């Protein structure tokens, strides 16, 4: 699915827009972008660059992130997701394209302006935490404020909230090497939030943690987001993690965007066999909701006396109810009844993925299966 997909948010103005973004490593990559015609076929242009010994790490990347949205970038290692994220903050200087934050092109900013933007509008969390080994917890968290020259008392006051939000009270004087991985990442999160950024970038923040801790941190992350409502770009290679937190997911391969869509879209309507392979092991019943399995006909002819569920209930929640009665359930969204789920519609919904999956695999299955293995 291409990039004309509209975000599921109410705000019309996107927080961040990324247009035709390229990052090419190698000698003199700029020369490749003089020919506007060549840019119309990015895939073949990238191919030619590779043949010439350059490394196109991000190839014509386009997406938008809405206000308050959690936008997840996924892909295998080396797919360019980290590069894209770093291009957005210009930790990596993009070769070509536009990055609009609140409508302003970041790539045209001077070094000085960029520093101001990083000091006030962006926060970033790193996979291996990126903590300063010589500073204790409170100094690490207040580091961005210290760089701005804020006096110590004021700094501490500013971060009081954040420290308690991430649950670091009482550890303020510890040094990074005295903390567990999970604790260290809390420090990283607190630091990224210290400047109260609008745009929050997270680069595989939980990948270095144990599975148990990872799940706990995901819950806390969702909790933090529910109070702060930041616009978030979150990188992961773990599809289950993406499912738990994403509003939308962008899947990348070889520097190119393969598909952008909601988690359910990716599963039920994969753009190609690569996406299908990626989502293959996801338990469908946990991802699809009642709203995804409505019987045709809508809300008109719903019989009385059936059990009711909310539209966000997963099919896994629905199954026991339906198994007991061999009958349908009514689906509500708020006060409104939006339809019903019947055994037939349920089976249809579940079968949809298998069909889509098989179709995608038939197209170019053998080649991709090799690659992902």
């Amino acid at each position, binding site marked *: 699915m291409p990039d004309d997909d509209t975000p599921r948010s109410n705000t019309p103005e996107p927080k961040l827009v990324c247009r035709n973004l390229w990052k090419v490593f190698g000698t003199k990559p700029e020369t490749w972008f003089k020919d506007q015609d060549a840019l119309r076929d990015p895939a073949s242009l990238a191919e030619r660059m590779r043949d010439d010994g350059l490394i196109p790490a991000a190839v014509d990347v386009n997406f938008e992130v809405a206000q308050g949205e959690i936008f997840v970038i996924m892909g295998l290692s080396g797919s360019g997701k980290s590069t894209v994220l770093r291009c957005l*903050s210009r930790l990596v200087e993009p070769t070509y394209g536009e990055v609009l934050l609140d409508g302003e092109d970041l790539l045209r900013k001077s070094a000085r302006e960029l*520093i101001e933007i990083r000091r006030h509008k962006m926060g*970033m969390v790193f996979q*291996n935490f990126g*903590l300063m*080994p010589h*500073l204790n917890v409170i100094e690490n968290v207040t580091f961005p404020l210290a760089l701005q020259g804020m006096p110590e008392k004021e700094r501490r006051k500013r971060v009081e909230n954040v420290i308690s939000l991430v649950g670091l009270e009482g550890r303020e004087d*510890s040094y990074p090497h005295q903390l567990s991985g999970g604790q260290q990442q809390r420090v990283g999160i607190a630091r990224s939030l210290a*400047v109260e950024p609008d745009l929050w970038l997270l680069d595989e923040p939980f990948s270095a943690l144990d599975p148990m801790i990872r799940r706990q941190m995901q819950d806390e992350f969702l909790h933090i987001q529910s109070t702060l409502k930041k616009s978030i770009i979150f990188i992961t290679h773990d599809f289950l993690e993406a499912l738990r937190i994403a509003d939308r997911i962008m899947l990348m391969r070889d520097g190119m965007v393969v598909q952008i869509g909601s988690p359910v879209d990716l599963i039920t309507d994969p753009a190609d066999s690569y996406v299908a392979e990626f989502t293959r092991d996801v338990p469908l019943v946990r991802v699809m909701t009642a709203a995804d399995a409505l019987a045709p006909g809508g809300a008109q002819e719903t019989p009385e006396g059936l059990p009711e569920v909310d539209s966000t209930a997963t099919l896994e929640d629905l199954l026991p109810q339906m198994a007991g009665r061999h009958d349908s359930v009514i689906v509500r969204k708020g006060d409104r009844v939006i339809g019903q789920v019947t055994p037939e519609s349920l089976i249809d919904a579940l079968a949809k993925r298998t069909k889509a999956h098989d179709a995608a695999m038939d197209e170019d299955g053998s080649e991709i299966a090799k690659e992902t293995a």
Partner: protein
Amino acid sequence: MTEIRRWVSGGSAWAVLIALTLVLLLQRDALPWAIRFPDGWAVPLTPWLNAGMNWVIDSFGIYFRAFSDQLSVLMRWIRDGINSLPWAAIVALVAFMAYAVSGWKLAVFSFAAMFYMVLIGFWTEAMNSLALVALSVPMAVIIGFFTGALGFASDRADRIIRPTMDMMQTIPAFAYLLPILLLFGFGPVVGLIASLLYAVPPMVRNTTMGLGAVNSEVIEAGSMSGATRRQLFWRVRVPSAMRQILLGVNQTTMAAFSMVIIASIIGGTADIGWEVLKSIRRAEFGESLLLGLVIAFMAMVMDRLTAQIARRDTSGPEALEWARPRVLWLSALVLAIAITALAQVLPFLKTYPAAWEFYPAGRLNSAVQYIVTEFTVTINYIKQVAFFFVMLPVKMGLEKTITPFSWGFAFTDTLKIGYAVAVLALAALSWQRRSWRAAALVIFFGMLLFVGITGMPWPALIAMATLLAYQTGGRRLALGMLAGLGFLLLAGVWEEAMLSIYLCGLAVLFCFLIGGALGVLAAEFDSVSAALRPFNDTLQTMPLFVILIPFVMIFKIGEFTALLAIIAYAIVPSIRYTEHGIRSVSKEVIEAATASGCTPLQLLWRVKLPLAAPVILLGLNQTIMYAIAMLVIAALVGTSDLGQLVYIGLGDGDFGVGIVAGVGMAIIAMLADRMTQAMGGRPK
């Protein structure tokens, strides 16, 4: 072209070179120039160099002198400053610092070590050395830090800085004492500048390395926190690299101190190094031992203090108490003032009364004398055996060594033929069992032992070394080898160079065997490791010439003593790297091997040693470097190699001789370094 290349890489090239050597050896009476490079063929480098130096002194001498005058003033201030403090205040301050950075143990040790200097009555001399270090270390640290930062920031600068640092550290110190002496004039300033030159490189290296090794995420986190370039450098990169930088400070301090001691050889400095040297020259062993201990203690205190500061930097909570610099400085100041005030009332705190001194040099001398006379037979026996059965054969060859006087029988023609047959048989066996390489090696050493290293024809040696360099490291290394050996030959120092290689080679061989064995034991048994550690630490921090003292005491001067001293110093890296290499073999591999039914010995020979080989080879590399460094110092006790030439150059004020010999040693060191690196693949 490719065929030539294949031929050169193969074994037949060796066969040709060995045949060439044999021909040259058989015809040596007809071709004397092949054994001894004729003096007439040498390039008169020495007079040219001396002329150049004279020109530099005539044209720029005044500026150098002016600079050195400025430094002298600064140095006098520091010296007077230290001398004006009561000894008790300095001892207390050092002990306090030790306590602050480490704790009671180090404090007690530092106190005892410092008090020893007072007790034997050489406080002033020790403080004069300390004053030099106190000036040269901060200067070296500042210069080194900024040079290192430059090398980190710019690849182009790094390409110039790196080889310069290599040169500064591999050219033996004695070689540049003389030019400094000529340029800057006589006096302690020479020691200062020499120690600066020698102490800067470790600081540069550690700074460049530390700054480059900072985790990229930390840097990115700094950038994302909105750091400007300057903030990123000073508030993120430098503090994150602080540990490595402080390690550089530690190494720089030790290098500076060791050089301050070495530089006393030019005399007139009234410092502790001069006193030690004086007593070694007068063969006063009791004195040299007691004074050598002063140097050893100073080195240990400085090393432990600076190493502790580096280690402590990861600011744990226990460090936090004392890390508040204000409290620390204030307490130190109060302590110093209090003791100085007290010294007004109790004068013995200011000047230690001579009557309370304890200087048992006389008794030590008679004790040494007693031991030496008591064990004369044994000592001489050891010396003779080493000399006639190991050292002389390598140096001059069996043909000259085997006489009725030394071995008890003459080297008759029958025996010579027997020797040749034995070598050939061994070679054949090695070929069959191992490879043509082993066979070539056997034949080469067979010839070498027969005529000695000085009797080998130089054209053959150069050709073989170049071939070896080509086969291990490719064309560039081969060219380097050819150029380096060519320099030694044309500069007219071939024989001295061969003697250096002989002495170093023997020492390295012993270090590798004994050190390797000790390293294996240390890796297998924790108790051995624990027992060896203090020895290794001490030997490594000791200024080189202190190591000579015990050997001179027992074996008097001579090449054997030099050999022992070199071994004592150079064995440390062999032990350390072998132990480290074996200990870092992955546990899984060992478990897998054990599960496959390896006996402990098989485990060692078939698994641990092969896997540890790269690290052990790195140890060999370090051993060679250490041996070459010690070579010059060992010249003090009588050798006839390049080290001696360096020393002679210094003694005669002959700049050219000293510098040619010094560069010669640097060339040998660098070639040996590149060769061992090429053999082990690039070490990290």
